[in-house]
């Protein structure tokens, strides 16, 4: 079979769309208008296309769209919006963790995925969780600061 209708959810919205077998999730999401998911390399090197699938961060460029049938996808725009940003998004903006912003959607998704599993990560755990997200502008310093601030807020001020 080379084409079929797939049902899946993106940012709490149901989609049913006909997709060829070779389409990646990245291609499908962007074609559906989720252009907050960025394409930086299409081979899993840069992490700009990261999305959450049932809460776990994956590179959408390495994922065939058919394989997410029936699953729930969250892109960075699904975490919050400018009127009501997700606390992590607010922390990134406030800490200057964003420069050109092209890596940001992926970095925030990877950070969120980390914090959902490890609410109080060490510095090394933060670095490890973000090692698949390349950033060429910030030098990562303020990204670490933003994630740490988030941890601090959530843990009521206790940092490991």
């Amino acid at each position, binding site marked *: 079979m080379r084409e079929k209708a797939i049902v899946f959810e993106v940012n709490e919205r149901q989609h049913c769309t006909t997709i060829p077998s070779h389409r990646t999730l990245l291609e499908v999401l962007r074609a559906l208008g989720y252009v907050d998911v960025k394409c930086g390399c299409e081979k899993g090197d840069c992490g700009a296309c990261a999305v959450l699938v049932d809460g776990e961060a994956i590179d959408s460029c*390495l994922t065939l769209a058919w394989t997410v049938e029936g699953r729930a996808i969250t892109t960075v725009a699904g975490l919050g919006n400018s009127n009501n940003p997700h606390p992590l998004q607010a922390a990134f903006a406030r800490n200057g963790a964003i420069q050109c912003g092209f890596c940001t959607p992926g970095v925030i998704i990877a950070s969120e995925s980390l914090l959902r599993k490890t609410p109080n990560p060490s510095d090394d755990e933060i670095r490890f969780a973000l*090692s698949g997200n390349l950033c060429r502008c910030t030098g990562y310093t303020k990204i670490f600061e933003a994630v740490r601030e988030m941890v601090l807020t959530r843990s009521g001020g206790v940092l490991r």
Partner: protein
Amino acid sequence: MFAEFDLEMPNSLDEAVLALARSDGIETLTLAGGSSLMVDIRARRVVPERLISLARINELRRIEILGPRITIGSRTTVSDILRSNQVAEHGAALAASAEVFAGQMVRNVATVAGNIACGSPAADLVPPLLSLDADVVLTNASGFRTVPLADYFTGFKQDVRRPDELITAISWDVPGAKCANRFYKLARRKGDAITVTGVAVTLGAANGVCTKARVALGAVAPIVMRARAAEAMLEGSTLTVELIEEASLKAAEECQPIDDIRASADYRRHAVHMLTRRLVAGAWADLHLATEVS
């Protein structure tokens, strides 16, 4: 992505092996996490006509200990390994290799079997598994067979798996307390990098004598290889600094590295020497410590 293939999404292992059996000469590949295969398809290094995705076969995603064996289902991801206390306890080198494996998103999808099946001599999980004497379980429609990982690879990107077979599990004997297992990956970058040289070492000891030695080397030969001559030098002896040095030099002699953009063959041999020395000495110290504690 420009490609054309049939994509099948079996719901169970039975469906998957039946689908594989129905290949009829059509170039068929199995797709697990996709972190390696999707890259190859996009680059048109492989042009499959048919893909069988394992995405829905959750029965293959498990880590369990049955008696003396620890078994990892083939679709277990690198992140699953990182979260597993059993692997941390019974496969320290494997856990260590997962800690230097790609980036988070890739770790969340890349599978143990995929890392073996991709056939890369730089595959990070393979040296640790080789050092643990792991077996590979291959399943087809008529049954399964078990192949020692040491016999699995036959050449660069070549293996004993038949077209109708699926890797379904990897298993090894739970190492005893008198066993130490270490791994180190040397790369050009600390995060998310292709291995320049990876070395995994398992040592067993009894009464101050090394009873078992495994030295597995990654990215220094067409396949991930065992440094068998070095192992033979270590087994049956009490390890001294001199002996470890000699065995490490032997391992460097045994490997067959090439020059590539990451490093020269010469440097890789040097790295094998240094890392083997360091890991064997470290593992030996682990054993010594374990002895003292017990």
